Every structure is written in C-alpha cells, then in structure tokens.
C-alpha cells in the first residue's frame, strides 16, 4: 500500500519538476540514505518472507522506474534550459563597446604612403637638420648669395648664414657627402619653412625629397619613377607630363603635371578645366652640385624630386585650406 502511494507521489513529483535543483531534491527524498524508498527497504526485515519477496519485487520495480524518471526529467529539463537560452535575444543594433581609436595625422599618412612606394623602389628614408647652414640650403645647391633664385624662397634666419631650411634639398648634399658612394637612393620627409602665410601658404610645411644617383641614371628613369609614383598614389590610369622649368640645383628641371584624377584629363573643376594638376618639381642633379658633394659627374648622374606633402594631401583628401592641417581640430583629425 505504502509503495503504491509512494509511486503515485513520485510520479507526479517528477512530472511537475521544473528545475535541476528540484530534481535533485526529489532524488534525495526518494533514493537518498534517508529517502522514502530507502526507509521502506530498511523496514522489509520485519516482514514475513512471502510478503518480503512481494514487497521487494515491487520496491525494486519502483526504484528502476524512479531512476528512469530521473533520467527522463534530466533530458526534459536540459532541453528546456537550452530552449530558454535560445529564447533569449540580443538587440544587436545597440552600439558596441569600442576601444578608443585615434588617428595618424593626414600629412603623416600621405607621407608614409609615398615613402612606402619609394621604399619598394629601394629608396631609404633619411633625415637632416631643420636649422641649416646657408651652405647646404643654398650655396651647395648652386644658389650663391645675391642670386635671384633666393627670391623664390623667402627665408627665416636664425643667425647670419644660418637659416630654417627652405627645402628638403640640403639633405641631398648631406646624403651624398656622407655616403660618397653610388648607387645612392634616399628619400627625406621633413618640415621646411618659408616666410609666407595665407590660405594656400603656411610658414611651415612638409616636403619629400627623393634622390637617385648612379652610373647612367637618365631623365627617362626620372619619368618612369614619377609615373609609377603617380599611379600608385592617385590612379592606375594616371599619366604624367613634364614641363621645362628652373631650379638652380637641377638641370634640366621640370614641373610635373599629372592627368587629373577627377576627370582623367577631360577637364573639370578640380583641374580648372585643364585636365592636368601640377604636383611637384624635379630634375637631373646639376653636375656642379655633384661636384660640391665630391661625386664624379662624368661617371655618375642622377635625378632629384621635391614634392609638397600638403599639396598631395590637399589633392587626395579635397582639403582647400592649408591651415586645417595645423589647427589640430579633432573634428578634422577624426576623419582620417
């Protein structure tokens, strides 16, 4: 009788069981050392042998059933936990927790890209002083005192014959004097200074100087290097056009135009309808510059390129006021 009641009780207990804690409590209540079934089994010794056999069989059957029910309930409960987790959803449109992210300055980014392209061509990155002797900034570059070319670059003076470099070209002289060997391929990214300030001129700006000296370097090599640079930096379709110009330290000298990347040369606002955009100046290193630096100009020749990094960055990013680069307004820097 007792067993029958217990069976019923157990059966409804398991069917109503809702959590693994409840299930464990049920198991302990029935099969534990002091559990109800265990108690019944303990009392069996007091029964008649025939009665004992009958109750024993019944109790064992119940024990087996309870074990089956436990297993069944486990499976059922596991299923429902999984379903419960599956039922929980995230609003994946809520914002993520971002680690703070800054940015490298657009001028630096532009310069690094150019230096990387040049690096692949074997140009090593060097640097030189920003306060420079007149000798390196002017005289060795074929710009003697009282030369009209000095007027092209208004100069800041620190002391007599000591200037803030007006160009990165003095690094050419330093590299040649320091190495005294060919092949020589260097690039220099740095600050330069001119006594000038308005929307398109900053008293401080950045240039990249490129110098390549070896036996038999020709104007064709210069043109090839420029073409590759323009293609990698601006557009695969870019073409370059060289116009004769004048820099005292190169001869021939050229201004370089690139086919407009806005219209591919058809003419648009970006290129003022000319189809071309002026990007930099360059030329073959003047033999007298090689001589000053102690390099035999009969055996060797080379080219030099000087480009304004601000100009490149303004073109690439559509910046129209150069002063934005030096205000360091986070609303501007944050766009890069």
């Amino acid at each position: 009788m007792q067993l029958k009641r217990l069976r019923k009780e157990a059966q409804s207990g398991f069917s109503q069981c809702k959590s693994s804690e409840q299930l464990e409590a049920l198991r302990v209540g029935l099969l534990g050392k002091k559990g109800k079934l265990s108690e019944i089994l303990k009392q069996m010794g007091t029964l008649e042998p025939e009665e004992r056999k009958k109750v024993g069989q019944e109790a064992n059957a119940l024990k087996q059933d309870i074990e089956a029910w436990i297993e069944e309930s486990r499976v059922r409960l596991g299923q429902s936990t999984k379903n419960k987790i599956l039922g929980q959803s995230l609003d994946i449109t809520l914002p993520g927790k971002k680690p703070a992210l800054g940015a490298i300055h657009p001028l630096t980014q532009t310069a690094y890209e150019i230096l990387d392209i040049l690096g692949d061509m074997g140009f090593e990155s060097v640097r030189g002083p920003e306060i420079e002797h007149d000798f390196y900034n002017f005289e060795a570059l074929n710009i003697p005192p009282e030369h009209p070319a000095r007027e092209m670059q208004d100069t800041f003076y620190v002391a007599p014959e000591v200037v803030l470099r007006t160009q990165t070209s003095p690094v050419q002289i330093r590299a040649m004097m320091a190495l005294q060997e060919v092949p020589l391929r260097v690039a220099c990214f740095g600050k330069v200074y001119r006594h000038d300030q308005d929307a398109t001129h900053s008293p401080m700006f950045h240039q990249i100087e490129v110098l390549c000296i070896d036996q038999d370097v020709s104007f064709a090599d210069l043109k090839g290097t420029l073409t590759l640079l323009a293609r990698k930096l601006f557009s695969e379709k870019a073409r370059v056009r060289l116009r004769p110009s004048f820099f005292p330290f190169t001869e021939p000298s050229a201004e370089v135009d690139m086919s407009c990347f806005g219209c591919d040369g058809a003419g648009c606002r970006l290129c003022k309808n000319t189809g071309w955009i002026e990007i930099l100046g360059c030329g073959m290193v003047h033999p007298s510059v090689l001589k000053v630096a102690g390099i035999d100009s009969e055996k060797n020749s080379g080219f030099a390129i000087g480009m304004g990094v601000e100009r490149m960055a303004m073109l690439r990013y559509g910046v129209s006021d150069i002063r934005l680069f030096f205000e360091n307004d986070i609303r501007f820097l944050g766009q890069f």
Partner: protein
Amino acid sequence: MHISIQTLRSLVDLPDLSPQELADKLTLGGLEVEAIQAFEDDTILELKITPNRPDALSHMGIARELAAICHTRTTFLAPSIKELGGSIHDLVQISVVSKEACPRYACRVVEGVQIAPSPDWLHKKLLSLGLKPINNIVDVTNWVLFERGQPLHAFDLDTLAKPKGRIALKIRSASAGEKLLTLDGKERSLLETDLVIADEDKAIALAGVMGGKITEVSNSTQNILLESAYFEPRGIRKTAKRLGLSTDASYRFERGTDPNGVIAALDRAASLIQEIAGGRIRRDAADVYPKVIEPLEISLRPHRLAQFSGLPEVEPAELRTRFLALGIETSGRAAHDALKFRVPTFRPDITDEIDLIEEAMRLIGFDQVPARIGFRKSLDGKSLDVSLDKLERHMKTFLSQAGFFEAINYSFGSPTELELFKATDLLTLQNPLGEEYSAMRQSLFPGLLNNLRHNLRQQVQKLSLFEAGVVFWGKNPAGQKPEMANLTAHNMAADAYAQEKLFLAGVSYPGDFFALKGILESLFDSLKVSVDFKPLSLQLSFLHPSQSANIWLQDAPLGFLGFLHPDFKEEASACVFALDLDLLKSHCFKPIQVKPLPKFPGIQRDLALVVDEKVLAGDILGVIRNFKTLKPILEDAKIFDVYQGKGIEPGKKSIAVSIYLRDLEKTLTEEQVNLPVESLKQELNTKLGAVLRV
C-alpha cells in the same frame, strides 16, 4: 610679364595657331603661360618667366623661343638711325669709375624734341602690357624695354650740370650717406655699395634701378640724354633689395641683360623718339665698353645627350638647326665626338655642356623621352641608419590605435609660452612672422596645450593628442663650419648648427594617470624595452610635484609622465608625457631570442602586506625582485590590490602581491617554496616594516 600676340606676330613668322595653342607651346617649352586675356583687338599672354631666363623678358625673346619651338624664323629688323649735327663727344664725356659694376655704358643725345602724349598705337601697346602711358619720351623707353629687354633711361639734358659747356657723366659708387630724390618722390639715403650715375655736382640716377626726380623728363623738356647700359647683376640686386625697390629695369638688370644689345636698343629708342617726338639725333653714340664680353664657346657631345636624357641619339644637323633658331651658332668643328657652339651673350644661363643638353631636350620636348626604370635595384656598400624613422612610425601607429590623435604644430612659438616649460638658451628667429612665432620650440607642450584649448572650446570633452617633432636645444657645441664637416652614414648632421632632438609628447584630457601609464607600459612592452617609472626627481616645474614620474631608461632620463601643475588651471586636469626618441632608438628593436617554454608547473603565492601608507608599491616589488634567496625561482611579482579603510589601522595600507615561482629544471615542491617565502616575509618586515595582514 605681359606679351602681346599682335606684337609677337610682327617679330616672328608664326603658323596659324590660336592663342591657346601658342600658350600651350610656350608652356611646354618651359615658358609658363599663366593667363590669356583679350585686349581690344589683341590678345595678351601673361607669362611666368623663371629667374634663369632674362632673355625671355621681352617680346623679341619670346619670338625667338617660338621660332625655335615652331621650326620657323624671326623677322627682326636692324634699327636704322638718322644722325644730324655735331658729335655727342663734343657735349658729353663719360667716365666709368666702377668698372666692375658697370662693364658698359652708352648714351645718345636727341635735341629739340616735342613732349606730348604718345600716339594711339604706342598708347594702346603700353596699356595692353599693363603700363601707364606718361609722355612720348618715357613711353618709348618703356616700350623698347618690353620689345627688346634692354632697360633705358631718358634724362632732361638741360638739368645736368654743364661747366665749360660740357656734361661730364660719372658712373661711380655712392658715397656713404649720399642723398638722391628718386622718380617716385622718395629721398633715398645711399651706401657705398650702391652705384649711381652722376654729373659734376650730384647723383642723377640710381644706376639700373631708378632715375632721379630732378633730371626727369618733363613737359618743358627740349633736349634729352638717352642712356643704355649693362650693369653687373649682383650689385643691382643688392641695391634694389635693400631699398625694396623692384622696377622693370632692376628686375632685368639683376637677372642679366645682354651687354652686346646695348647699342641696338639705344638706336632703336633714339629713332623711335625722333619719329614720334621730332628732334635731331646727334652724331655718334657715346659708348664706354673697355672689355668686350665675348660669346662663350661650348662643346656638346651627342652621346652624352643621349645617355643623360634617355632619348635616342640626335643627328648633329638637327641640333644645329634647332640651336640656330635660338641664336646659338655652330662654331667650327670641335673634337671628334663633340659639337661646338657659340652662345650669344643674351643667354647668360648657358655656360656649360649641361646647359646645352637642357636646351636640346627642351626643344626636342620632354614628352619625347620614354618613361622607364632602369636604375640598379641593389644597394651595395654602406647602409643608412633608419632606426629613428622605424621607431617614430611604430610609436605613431601604436598611439593612434590606443586612442591618440596625431597633431602637427609649428616649430616656432612664443618665448613666453615656451618658458613655462623650462626653456633655456632659446634659439630665436631674426625675422619672425611675429613675436608669437619668434622662438624655436624646446618643448612640444605649448603647441599641444593650444590644441587642447582649441578643442575644448569646440565642446570636446575628452581628448588625447600626441605630437612627434624636433625640439631645439640651443646651439650644437660640436657644430662646425659646414665645409669642414666629416659626415658619415650614421651621422649625416654632425656639423648641424643646433642640437635637434626628436621628441614625442602627448596630452590626455581629462587625465587618468594609470590609464596613461598603462598605455606607455604596453608601448614599451611592444618595443621590448624595460624602463623604470620613479617619483619625480628631476626638476620639472610644470608638472604636479607628487603626481608625476620620471621615466628612466637604465641611468638616462627618457622622459616623464604626470599631471600638469595646478597653476595651469583648466588644463591641470590633463595628464601629459614626453619621451626622447633619440635616446630610445638605440635600445629598442633588439633581435628576439626565444626562450624555451617551461616544462614544469609553477606555484603562485599571494601575500597581503600591511605597510605604512608612505611605502610605495614599487619599493615592495623592488625588495621581492632583489631578494637573493628567492631569485633562482622567481618568475614574476605583481601588485593586485591596494586597500585602506576598515580593518586597517589609519596611516597604514594593505598591499596584495602575487608571487610567481618556477623551477625550470623540475617540479617545485611545497617544501622548496615555503622556506624562501618565509624569509622573504622577514626581509619585507626588516626593510619596509611590512607585516602580514590577518
């Protein structure tokens, strides 16, 4: 410079080209046309002439260029002149005292002229070139200047001193302090380096720059003395620059005019004056030209041209024809592999073979040169030191990914702002844009703090900025005369004038000391450099004295980190740091040698120590790391908690440390660990008064 297409067409046989086509040809020939404008029935080109091409500063110069570019020829007429009356030598005597400054001086006299406004054609020509017509005499001199490039000047002959009926012109240096009232009405005080034209009594013109007011041609002028000369460029430039006086004349003289074009221009002007203002030209020109400047003879090797340009070899005949259009004549036969040319004196820019190579390439066209890359790729021999660039780039990348924005500020700033950051021996500019830009920076902070203020004004509430840039630490004691310098691949700047140091500094607002310290620690980890943060011992008055640290790299000060001094008010809640990259570069990017992975398990022991609140966490770690008994098995020690409050006596604090122990050879046993840890506790007690927290 303005060029009239109508005038050009009278000087050269031009093919039928539109103004735009002409402009393109000039631009691609190296004479950049910046604008094209209509003027009545004429078209005016605005050209930007490079300083090496004084010959192109006139219509005849441009005509010559076009002739060479378009394979055609110029139609210049030699000026003819009708002389009348006595010789100029009876009236004018010239003595050139400053022979070097004035290699040639010539003049003519025209008597009995009628001063009047210029005729329409001349009036219009001047207006079209942007010049203001004055009177027929001055207008002719101006016009001939724009036609031929030779500056001229007309004096009123009757204003010149004429003792004994003769004018004695002297071309001499000014005496110091000598005064001259120039045409623009300004009295100029002269120096001995200035060259003047003088009569017996006084200076009458600032040679090559501007005439004098007293001797100016006026409405009552009847007789004129017309000057045409060649002045040495450097002297003219010096005077013009000193006086801030750039005139059409000085602009040309300082770039170099043609010493052998002096008389043709003089005759052209004299006969034009006669034509439109009447008068008689006296017989002869006075011309002092003691040392004739001869055209240079220069060789050109066609194979050198080919090698240098990358063009296929050019036929000598083609070169000769091209050059002839420019006035460069063939001069006999030179050596077997070279051609020889005679370069006219109006081309002072051509002095060497390379200049002829340039002319040839320019005329053939840069567009004819192929584009290729044929230079050697391998770099033999010495390699350059690029470690600083590598370090700078690494740091910029790291910091930008840790939330910092890179700023770039001017390298010059206000001395007052710089002095807040302990500036000494500031290098200053002799000609700054203003006081606020007059000193070369010794610190990156004035710039960064300005940027911070700018952004705070834009309602930005949280901001981290850094800048990497050169700071200037006064003069370089090792600086030398550049000509004496011994530059090497590792020190290309041995002779630099200033001590230039590459620093990286940052500011983070609002400041969180440990967040910033953590970023720097990770940065140093990424560079595989170990540094020490120690309480501020180097005097840095702009930092909070007890919330800042010096960063040491071995025994050298690498930089600092901390809050700004409360004197900074608003910005004082910012944390800043600065690092010396020149010092750092030699300690990072060391080659990596991998250690074997540990084979045996380690043991961790945590100690909670109660110490006086003045004891620093770093002191505890120092004792642990230097404790000899533990050293062989000590792997690491880390602070994981600091506590003050309930359960801890006031004036004390509890610091919890994890100690990680491992034997590389075998599994550690409890017995092996217990004894040394016990004596460590003893050591901590002896050295720092630390007791275990209970």
